């Protein structure tokens, strides 16, 4: 009991002393962006820049509010999220399947790896014309493109991760009377997980990038559609809203993967401290 109390108290102390420093750093980080916003607003207010080309922050905020209350923003945001969700889902599932197959067996490597490596050298965005001819201009080509883009980082990282699992640990596990499947499940796949999550972060980034491009080519919904429409009507403020939404979505999803990492890799030394702190926070 006593030893448990001591070990629980220590990380809490560390967290407390750490947080005051972290707060200052956080505050410093926001100084520059806030300054830029102020200068930007001032330039617009004194008509030093053409607000038609460069709307002021206040104008952008107003237009954001307008889009929100008319329901345009949420509807199009949902359309974009669905595309990324489905495309990313398909890409991750396929990438994981191929990665596990190629990583675990020589046969898998021979059948899958060289083909995927060849396709990988092709920039997947270059396939847009082909995908439109194949799949039309509906949701299918967009989702297919996102899936294709997301597949490779997952595949490459998982394959490399599986192959780099410490042979000595596998050997030790094989002296513990484990079946082949148990070794894969308990040793190989957890060992490849950190690398898989690196791949996932890349995939999420690529999914958003692909979405931006795909929605600008031909869409009648989505954030990209909103932005392209705004271009036709010279609504630069709406374009800015679209860009900010894109940035936020990228940021949020990256944070989500980080949270998954922190939970799934709680055993790693860099996370061990965070893990014990979580109760205190």
């Amino acid at each position: 009991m006593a030893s448990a109390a001591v070990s629980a108290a220590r990380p809490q102390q560390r967290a407390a002393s750490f947080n005051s420093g972290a707060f200052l750093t956080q505050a410093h980080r926001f100084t520059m962006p806030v300054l830029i916003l102020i200068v930007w607003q001032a330039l617009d207010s004194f008509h030093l820049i053409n607000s038609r080309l460069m709307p002021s922050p206040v104008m952008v905020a107003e237009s954001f509010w307008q889009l929100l209350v008319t329901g345009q923003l949420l509807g199009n945001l949902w359309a974009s999220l669905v595309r990324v969700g489905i495309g990313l889902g398909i890409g991750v599932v396929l990438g994981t399947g191929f990665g596990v197959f190629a990583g675990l067996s020589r046969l898998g490597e021979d059948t899958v790896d060289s083909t995927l490596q060849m396709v990988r050298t092709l920039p997947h965005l270059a396939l847009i014309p082909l995908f439109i001819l194949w799949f039309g201009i509906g949701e299918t080509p967009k989702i297919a493109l996102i899936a294709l883009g997301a597949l490779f980082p997952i595949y490459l990282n998982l394959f490399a991760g599986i192959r780099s699992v410490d042979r000595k640990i596998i050997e030790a596990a094989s002296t513990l009377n484990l079946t082949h499947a148990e070794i894969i499940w308990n040793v190989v796949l957890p060992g490849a997980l950190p690398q898989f999550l690196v791949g996932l972060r890349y995939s999420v980034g690529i999914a958003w990038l692909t979405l931006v491009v795909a929605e600008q080519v031909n869409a009648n919904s989505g954030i990209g559609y909103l932005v392209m429409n705004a271009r036709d009507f010279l609504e630069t403020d709406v374009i800015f809203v679209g860009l900010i939404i894109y940035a936020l979505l990228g940021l949020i999803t990256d944070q989500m993967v980080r949270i998954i990492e922190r939970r799934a890799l709680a055993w790693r030394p860099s996370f061990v401290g965070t893990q014990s702190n979580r109760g205190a926070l």
Partner: protein
Amino acid sequence: MTAIETRAPVLDSPRVTTAESAVSIRGLTRSFGGPAILNNLDLELEAGSFTVLLGRSGSGKSTLLRTLAGLDTAPAGTVSVPRERAVVFQEPRLLPWKRVWRNVALGLRDGDPRAQASAALDELGLSHRLDAWPLTLSGGEAQRVALARALVRRPKLMLLDEPFAALDALTRMRMQALVAKLWQQHDLTVLLVTHDVDEALLLGDRAVVLIDGQIGADIPINLERPRRHGDPDFIRLRQQLLATLGVDEVAG
């Protein structure tokens, strides 16, 4: 070349004709392309004995241990080992993504795995580290977890492959005492591979020296336990072993 008579399962489960408890090796030959690492080797380990396997680097002692552990899959000759055997390596080789008790319980089929793991860890003085992550353990603690992982399987044969080599001197002494205690309290046949002549004399009741893939010397160690470095018999055996290993120690 004779067929392998007994091999306990590693990944699959081939035929196993379990020996009573001792180890019996006949005509074991192993080469990795070049000259034979193990050359027509015969060795018997009495049940409950503590045998130390010494030899210079490349003398084949690790290959011999790996064969007994079922990790080396293509030896020629007859090897008979108990099915219940466990290995502790130089590195703890724990799964860093499983908490300590899960590492120990890995592969246990019946009963309450946590209770069994807990009992084994308790015996090694690690009951407070049950839920720790392996990477937060010290070197000695991690190696004790590896020992618990071996012990929890109730092995008849315990194979130790230089398990103390990576530890600091003080931890090593404590671990040596611990292994001696475990051997005395459990019904264990121990084979310890080491470079360290002192370690051999502290722990073993028989020292087998491998030279060029064959048994170069087989020396019984009939010293009183606990053993003392200053004991004249200890010193005499030490010099004898060192001479066998080709080290001419200047008498001091």
